[in-house]
């Protein structure tokens, strides 16, 4: 906040000088303008305080293990509120409905929608809808009527509340709160179905709550006598309009976002912004049309997640994910802190033991009744019945939260005399559910032995099998001639694949995505992480070079999937220091560093990273040839590609022996060729190449031009995947990967090279071979069939490149001192 404030100060000072130039006696050097910055300053301060609170709370894990964070935040709010009250004698800061509904809630719900496990959500849609609609109506009606009955029975003394007011109160208390549910259930890790039922209900019941609240609010205004069947029917119609209209609006906005991200290739730096802005607009538009804003933003997130994740650049996706989490978590923290602060306000507290305790009791009891009854009905139709214990947890997880409080504050004092009692009761209910139920949830879950979420190890075979199962089930439904769940899903998938993806996804991504494939990709990613982590453990990444394990990985995956998994390497080289942490990161392939490559093709730079490692090995051998390649020729790509090709071929026999030794697996019969990547399209990117030149100016070894190979290359078409364009800041800062810092000094011959020489019986490569083999793509092409055939051919190939390297090495000066440990180097470079 300092920066804008100083700016505005300047501005006003200037205005002051011109406007009232005569009224001041001297030029003020500084002026104190608190009121000028008061509001934004306070907001920023509160955000800071809330953030610090969370930090303090999370510092003690043994506390948060017992008491959920949300409860602690509320308690922290009590303290803060007490301090404010002590200072001002009035509660200056409370959670106002405007702030809550417009600035705090949307991002939480957008986050929920964006990260929604779609298959699970839609698979249980029926149950969720039943709970959300019927359950919520039941909660509202039963609570309102029971309280009214107790009132009539004289249980709570003299209160000026009529039946309609009770029903209004019931409707605002009815809804299970998504914020509270997320906060509590996220720490408990119950099984997915249970979670999605509670969570989905809490999201979708907003439509019902809004309608019920509005309808009863209108009824209260109209007064009992005015209400007739027509009004009630109107209310019911309005439910459908509000709920479906809101969902539809969100759907439309979701499609809009998806379409938009199709064409944001050139403004990748701001493309994450669109998601947030359009999501927010979906919320506001729904609010404007008095539709369900929560439903709107949920469905916006649900609809667009698949397409934007595919359309946007990997980095943008990471940005969206992280920003989403930052905003949602921040808002959640703020909400709970302010819920606590709001309590410390004498003016709102009206105590009525009967009313408050009865409300608490009824909420609990009717929640249990509602859940058990609805589940009983649902279980007659569900294939996997919801177990008794799950029902208990579902009922117990009916947490009320800030939405109820926000609605309560929105009540009109003129129409509802006991507004403050309702607010107090709502607060009590919120505290009870969030704090008490939140604390007891975990022991209860443990005690009842609720099925927890299994920590699933992602395996490829499993994914394949699940795919097969899906197909089988659809086929069996076809054969037995029934239209079931699987059938519908298959039809939808077909439609989605054919039309929606076609319309909403970039053609380029459409091709390259597949579930099995993506699992494959993720597994590879994990491998990469563990390799680096292993390197960490050993103190350097040296082993990567000495152990063919890594190269194995590299050859197999890096080569073939340079298209699909550029980010693996990006991560590795970006900062391998964090890699071990990232392995456990829920959001894999995260690289938040933006550097300066933002506007240019990020994919390209990532590919560079992908191939960076291999290049290290190759350049060593090139030194003696350096003079042959003109530096002015910046078309590095082709040469590097060829180098890669040769190197991989060279390595293959090592890999295979390694694999059979280590994994007990026979070598693959066929060897990778090239990923179909249009390298030509990257070629004209002269600018970046130029920059890369300057970046590497200290190390000429990185510059090659293909010279004689160019002509041969053209014939080979656009098949070489290894585009190597060096770009500054592309994540190659990691000194472990920097050629000049390369710990593998020239004289230390990497084991595979030595082996290679032994293998080949010290075949001294002819001068011609040395020159031609690595560099002429026509050669490569010609040799390509060898790769697919026996290994002996390879060993011939092996002989050449390493030997060349060997000789280079001899010419070179002795090695520099060994590299410092990676952590130090990191520090220096980051």
């Amino acid at each position, binding site marked *: 906040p300092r920066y804008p404030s100083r700016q505005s100060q300047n501005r006003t000072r200037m205005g002051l000088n011109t406007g009232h130039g005569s009224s001041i006696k001297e030029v003020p050097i500084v002026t104190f303008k608190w009121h000028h910055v008061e509001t934004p300053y306070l907001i920023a301060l509160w955000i800071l305080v809330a953030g610090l609170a969370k930090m303090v709370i999370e510092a003690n894990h043994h506390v948060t293990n017992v008491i959920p964070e949300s409860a602690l935040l509320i308690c922290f709010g009590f303290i803060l509120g007490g301090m404010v009250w002590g200072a001002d004698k009035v509660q200056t800061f409370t959670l106002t409905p405007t702030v809550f509904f417009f600035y705090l809630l949307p991002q939480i719900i957008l986050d929920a929608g964006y990260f929604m496990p779609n298959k699970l959500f839609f698979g249980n849609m029926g149950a969720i809808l039943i709970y959300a609609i019927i359950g919520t109506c039941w909660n509202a009606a039963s609570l309102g009527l029971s309280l009214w009955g107790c009132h009539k029975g004289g249980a709570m003394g003299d209160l000026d509340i009529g039946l309609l007011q009770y029903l209004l109160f019931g409707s605002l208390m009815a809804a299970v709160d998504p914020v509270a549910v997320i906060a509590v259930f996220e720490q408990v890790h119950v099984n997915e179905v249970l979670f999605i039922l509670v969570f989905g209900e809490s999201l979708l019941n907003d439509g019902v709550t809004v309608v019920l609240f509005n309808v009863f609010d209108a009824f209260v205004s109209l007064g009992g006598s005015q209400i007739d069947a027509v009004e009630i029917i109107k209310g019911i119609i309005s439910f459908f309009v509000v709920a479906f209209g809101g969902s539809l609006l969100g759907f439309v906005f979701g499609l809009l976002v998806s379409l938009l991200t199709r064409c944001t290739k050139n403004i990748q730096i701001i493309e994450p912004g669109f998601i947030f802005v359009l999501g927010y607009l979906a919320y506001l538009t729904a609010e404007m049309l008095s539709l369900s804003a929560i439903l709107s933003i949920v469905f916006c997130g649900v609809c667009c997640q698949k397409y934007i994740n595919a359309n946007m650049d990997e980095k943008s996706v990471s940005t969206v994910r992280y920003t989403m989490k930052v905003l949602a978590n921040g808002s959640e923290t703020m909400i709970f802190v302010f819920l606590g602060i709001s309590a410390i306000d004498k003016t709102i507290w009206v105590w009525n033991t009967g009313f408050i305790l009865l409300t608490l009791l009824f909420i609990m009891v009717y929640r249990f009744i509602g859940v058990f009854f609805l589940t009983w009905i649902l279980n007659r139709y569900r*294939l996997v019945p919801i177990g008794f214990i799950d029902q208990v947890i579902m009922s117990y997880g009916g947490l009320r939260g800030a939405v109820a409080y926000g609605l309560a504050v929105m009540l009109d004092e003129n129409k509802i005399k006991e507004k403050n009692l309702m607010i107090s009761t709502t607060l009590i209910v919120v505290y009870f559910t969030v704090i008490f139920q939140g604390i007891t949830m975990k022991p209860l879950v443990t005690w009842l032995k609720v099925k927890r979420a299994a920590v699933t*190890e992602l395996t490829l075979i499993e994914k394949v099998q699940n795919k*097969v199962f899906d197909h089988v089930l659809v086929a*069996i439904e076809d054969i037995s001639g029934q239209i079931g*769940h699987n059938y519908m899903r298959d039809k939808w998938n077909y439609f989605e694949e054919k039309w929606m993806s076609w319309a909403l996804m970039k053609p380029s991504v459409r091709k390259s995505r597949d579930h*099995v494939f993506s699992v494959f990709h993720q597994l590879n990613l994990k491998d990469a992480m563990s390799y680096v982590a292993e390197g960490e453990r050993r103190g350097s990444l040296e082993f990567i070079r000495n152990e063919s394990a890594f190269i194995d990985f590299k050859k197999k995956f890096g080569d073939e999937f340079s298209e699909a998994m550029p980010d693996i390497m990006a991560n590795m080289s970006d900062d391998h220091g964090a890699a071990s942490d990232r392995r456990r990161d829920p959001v894999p392939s995260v690289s938040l560093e933006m550097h300066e490559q933002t506007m240019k093709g990020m994919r390209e730079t990532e590919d560079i990273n992908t191939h960076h490692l291999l290049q290290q090995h190759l350049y060593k051998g090139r030194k003696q040839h350096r003079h042959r390649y003109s530096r002015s020729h910046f078309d590095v790509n082709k040469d590097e590609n060829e180098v890669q090709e040769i190197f991989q071929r060279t390595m293959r026999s090592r890999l295979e022996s390694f694999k059979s030794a280590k994994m007990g697996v026979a070598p*693959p019969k066929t060897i990778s060729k090239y990923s179909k990547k249009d390298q030509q399209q990257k070629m004209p990117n002269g600018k970046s190449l130029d920059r890369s030149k300057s970046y590497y100016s200290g190390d000429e070894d990185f510059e090659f031009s293909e010279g004689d190979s160019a002509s041969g290359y053209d014939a080979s078409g656009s098949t070489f995947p290894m585009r190597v364009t060096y770009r500054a800041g592309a994540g190659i800062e990691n000194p472990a990967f920097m050629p000049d810092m390369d710990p593998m000094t020239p004289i230390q011959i990497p084991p595979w090279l030595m082996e290679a020489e032994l293998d080949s019986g010290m075949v001294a490569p002819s001068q011609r071979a040395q020159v031609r083999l690595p560099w002429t793509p026509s050669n490569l092409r010609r040799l390509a069939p060898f790769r697919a055939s026996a290994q002996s051919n390879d060993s011939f190939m092996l002989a050449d490149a390493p030997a060349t390297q060997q000789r280079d090495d001899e010419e070179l000066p002795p090695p520099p001192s060994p590299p410092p440990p990676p952590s130090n180097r990191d520090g220096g470079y980051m």
Partner: protein
Amino acid sequence: MGSSSSSMDHIPNAEELMQETGFSAAHLLRLYERFEFLDKDQTGELRPEDFGAIGGLALNPIGDRIISAFFSPGQETVDFPSFVRVLAHFRPNGTNRTRNGTQQEPVNSRTRKLKFAFQLYDQDRDGKISRAELLQVLRAMLGIQVTEEQLQSIAERAIQEADLDRDDAISFDEFKKVQQVSPHPQTPTKETPLHPTEGGR
């Protein structure tokens, strides 16, 4: 179920089938109607072409395999009892209304279900999913976006994951273990495949 119980008489060995498969009479009747519907030339036996006529199956990437699972090796046709026996694999667990007291494992047990899936892969019925067999399934399911080399890698990796005895193939035990070790969260399918009565209610 609109039809009267008299239709049951058309079904050969109805009682036995119900005992064996655990289907109720209503289920069986409905399946029989379906069987007759599929049996266009009224021979009382289905040929692969009859299955092929089902529209949705043509779109199914592994439809052929599933169809062939209905036919015991060497046979060109499937009669109603066999048809029902195959479908019985897909009855949900836990609702074994008519378990015949014998020790035999019910046809819809988890193991039998997995066995069915296993045999979809294991075309040569040697009790092992070889790399080539896995590759065939993958090729069918992944379509054209993925190149042959990628398929190879995926197949290889998948086998590595499951292959405990390092024979470069997945035996049924290994296959079973994969599904046991880590039940996949999002697919209740293998636990609870299709309820054949859902649509028939």
